């Protein structure tokens, strides 16, 4: 890998910027994502920052099964993220549609709409699992 690429990769691993999107979830996983930022779990010690805009984000953390209303918005947010970008499906609903799979207003898991890099199952996915999943994703970037 060229030197520039390695530096950018190092920066990305050291301080990934995250954007969070709820694509029709019950809020359970969203609350656990927010809880990961609070003092007990403190995701920020890994250098992870929660940003508001997709244009600066490396990682999209997505919760919930994709409802018809949110599908276009999800695709747009994904398209606005600069390469290389990674998508983390947080919670069973984001992984596969979960208990809502087959419901008429639900498309399915996140990967029915955009490509997913990491799946964190759980109903809800606990902050421990979220941290584990994100750290594993960062670890896999290191190998590249």
């Amino acid at each position, binding site marked *: 890998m060229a030197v520039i690429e390695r530096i950018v990769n190092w920066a990305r691993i050291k301080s990934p910027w995250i954007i969070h999107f709820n694509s029709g979830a019950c809020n359970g996983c969203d609350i656990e994502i927010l809880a990961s930022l609070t*003092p007990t779990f403190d995701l920020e010690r890994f250098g992870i920052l929660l940003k508001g805009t997709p244009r600066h984000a490396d990682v999209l953390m997505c919760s919930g099964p994709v409802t018809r209303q949110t599908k276009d918005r999800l695709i*747009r947010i994904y398209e606005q993220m600069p390469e290389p970008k990674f998508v983390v499906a947080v919670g069973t609903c984001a992984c596969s549609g979960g208990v809502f799979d087959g419901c008429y207003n639900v498309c399915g898991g996140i990967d029915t709409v955009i490509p997913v890099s990491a799946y964190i199952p759980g109903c809800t996915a606990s902050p421990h699992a979220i941290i584990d999943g994100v750290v594993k994703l960062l670890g896999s970037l290191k190998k590249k």
Partner: protein
Amino acid sequence: MDRVVIPIGPQHPALKEPESFRVTLEGEKIKEVSLRLGYNHRGIEKACEARTYMQNIYLLERVCGICSHSHSTCYVQAVEDLAGVEVPKRALYIRTIVGELERLHSHLLWLGVAGHEIGFDTLFMYSWRDREIVMDLFAKITGNRVNYGINTIGGVRRDISKEDQKEILIAVDKLEERTKYYIKVATQEVTLIKRLSNVGKLSHADIESFGAVGPVARASGVDRDIRRDDPYAAYDEISFKVITDNNEDVYGRTLVRVGELMESYSIIRQAIKNMPDGPITVKVPRKIPEGESISRYEAPRGEDVHYVKSNGSDIPERVKLRAPTLANIKAVLKMLENYNLADLPIIVAAIDPCFSCTDRAISITKLDTGRSEIMDWKSLREYSIEWYKKRGIRF
């Protein structure tokens, strides 16, 4: 003046954005608001008609990740009515304890979110750290932090051991101390009071007319609480106060929630002290006799209503649910009128909405310039915090 809608915003400029809030401004004052809901519409009521009564408990818990026990309990109560069974007292007490613990975690969550909306992030970090005490209790007693799965038709699935009860009491003591601190902050921190007072006011009469429920209604003096008025679980054997306030504004809604925390501690202590011995479940046949029933529950956000119609099979004919936030929507739209745009985040947050506000787009039309723009929630919150900083209110 012509209104020109120019979609500018976080998403692609040329594509139409499905805004949730459409706000029309005159100067800085909100003249009109309309709200497009349905982002979280998953088709749950239809799905209930294809699952057995037991399977629906699992589904309905996931209507909302914050008040999952409320929905699950409200539903099983309706089914138990149809089945004509008497749920053992011990199970009712366990449901009550879990329900009040849920109220604790929900109100602490709200306190943090409200703090975050006005730029008081310390409050967010403190209250969510305290909230973790309740989350640990849930994991210990029920096996999960969220979506506890404690209910079954005819009772509960797990008992609360003597050891668990001791732990709950220790946690409640600790949280009560912390809540006294929050009450101090809420009643003595001048900046907070200034920021929340006289914002989002809605009169008693308006609340009644719109049919608002929960702490929102009680903060405008409406003395209504399903735990007292239409008792369920063990509430007819427990004494507690219904907290109301006459401020009619966001500050009042804050005081009501913090007051309810204190009452919850008392309810939990009574429930543990008086919990009767006995079985925790009663057998209920798979096929539920034909009939209809309606059940209500005082969720942290307000009155939750479930209607169930049975047809003699093991699958319900119809399940209808009305979550508390839906009852408060018309009220919140009225509450926003004539307030500043900068007040929108906290007014909406003060109804403790059960739809995710983290990524909602807001379309703002300015009457005097005719221009329109789209903001996302985060930008609106930042605008609001800056607006108040310029007026001397900063945390």
